């Protein structure tokens, strides 16, 4: 599999096919129980991937003891502290940046609220702001919108597309529509051991409106995913 820089790659597959494990491997979160063969090669090859990723999961993972603004600034509490990053002026800059990001996701008014006061869609938007705050070139997303209702999901897909425009994004999803809307490249993962198959995407730029070309591709994907069942039977 190849993940081109600056583009969105969507990995589709049934539950349990191994796509989350793949993402966790990229994020450096894989535990010893998974059998793994193969290597990861980066361009430039001396780079350390773990320093350049931002991770967004299906749950929003907002800390309930922090305010919304503090949650967005969470990444600044971790990692090796650079000298001078603890000064008041540095902290002021950080919180201004966080506030600007909250504005971009449309939640600037909720900056001082607690997490429990937000709805599911709002919380995932805060998680998106937190991901942006990390300012990393690679963003790994594990079914980030699958817990939301259809309309909120649609809106958040558009928002994510707009805000993550120059990043290398690897998005895991089980929803073919989501993959078709957002991907520059689609992989379908299936089989045991898991193998990925690449598909051609429609020519329009993401986020796509669902037209005939997209519908045809969705049918193709569904046939492909179902084929695995047929082969098993």
């Amino acid at each position, binding site marked *: 599999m190849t993940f081109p820089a600056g583009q969105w790659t969507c990995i589709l597959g049934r539950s349990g096919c191994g796509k989350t494990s793949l993402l966790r491997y990229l*994020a*450096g*979160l894989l535990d010893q129980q998974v059998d793994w063969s193969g290597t990861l090669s980066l361009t430039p090859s001396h780079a350390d991937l*773990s*320093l350049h*990723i*931002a*991770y967004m*999961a299906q*749950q929003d*993972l907002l*800390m*309930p*003891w922090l305010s919304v603004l503090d949650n967005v600034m*969470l*990444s600044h*509490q*971790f*990692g*090796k502290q650079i000298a001078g990053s603890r000064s008041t002026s540095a902290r002021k800059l950080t919180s201004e940046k966080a506030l600007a990001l909250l504005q971009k996701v449309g939640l600037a008014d909720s900056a001082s609220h*607690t*997490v*429990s006061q937000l709805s599911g869609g709002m919380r995932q938007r805060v998680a998106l702001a937190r991901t942006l705050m*990390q300012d990393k070139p690679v963003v*790994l997303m594990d079914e980030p919108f699958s817990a939301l209702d259809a309309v909120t999901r649609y809106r958040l897909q558009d928002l994510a597309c707009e805000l993550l425009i120059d990043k290398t994004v690897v998005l895991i999803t089980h929803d073919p529509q989501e993959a078709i809307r957002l991907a520059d490249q689609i992989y379908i993962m299936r089989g045991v051991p898991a193998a990925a198959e690449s598909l051609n995407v429609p020519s329009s730029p993401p986020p796509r409106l669902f037209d005939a070309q997209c519908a045809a591709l969705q049918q193709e994907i569904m046939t492909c995913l179902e084929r695995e069942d047929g082969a098993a039977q």
Partner: protein
Amino acid sequence: MNNMTRVDPIPCQQHNNKWHMTPVLRLMISALVIIGLWQAVVVILAMPSFILPAPLDVFDRLIQRHDVLLKHTLVTAQEIVLGLLLGLAMGLFFALQMLLSNPIKRWLLPILIASQAVPVFAIAPVLMLWLGYGMASKIVMTALIIFFPVTTCCYDGLRNTPTGYLDLAQTMGATRWQMLRHIQFPASLPTLASGIRVAVVIAPIGAVAGEWVGSSEGLGYLMLQANARMLIDEMFAALLILSALSVSLYFVTDKLLKKLIPWEV
């Protein structure tokens, strides 16, 4: 539309709550009811005053001896609070040790559980022997009686941090210490708070038991003395103050915990 039956408008129920029933108010009303029943029992069954004194006699005695009672109340209160603080500190320390080091956990956890099999009362005379009749032995007694709930709640809270939080922190490059301080510790606070609530309720038991075994001051000591001199109304007065002390300690701690840990589920 003409076939539909006419529906009369339903009168709106209005709540005329001019005051709200708070837990404190409920407790005060319950206390008054209990005192009323107590008086009734004394009068109806003509209880001799050396078995069950009337509430009015007890209050009388309370006011009469308020200076002595106050002095001993302060001693017991200090023993309870200091014992709570010591037990809390010990519990946090041991819970952290068990979390950070697996070998320590494997050796310490069984000892911790076994320690609860020994009734704390049974070692009270030993504590008096080692630490004397002063406040120190009672403070240690109190700390020992609350040690187990605090340690297990703290350890469980720290251990059961949602893995999603830890994963997120790991991808952000958090060190072990940063994860402990910024994620595991705040996430453990609600569980720790329930441990503290239990501790606050059982701490007075440790202090008073210690005073019964050997002391020269405190409400427990006063109760024993009054009992020996057949001043049962004074004994009841001390008991009443002890109950009031425990209840107010619980309410204050509860309010404090709710304030410090507002996200408790």
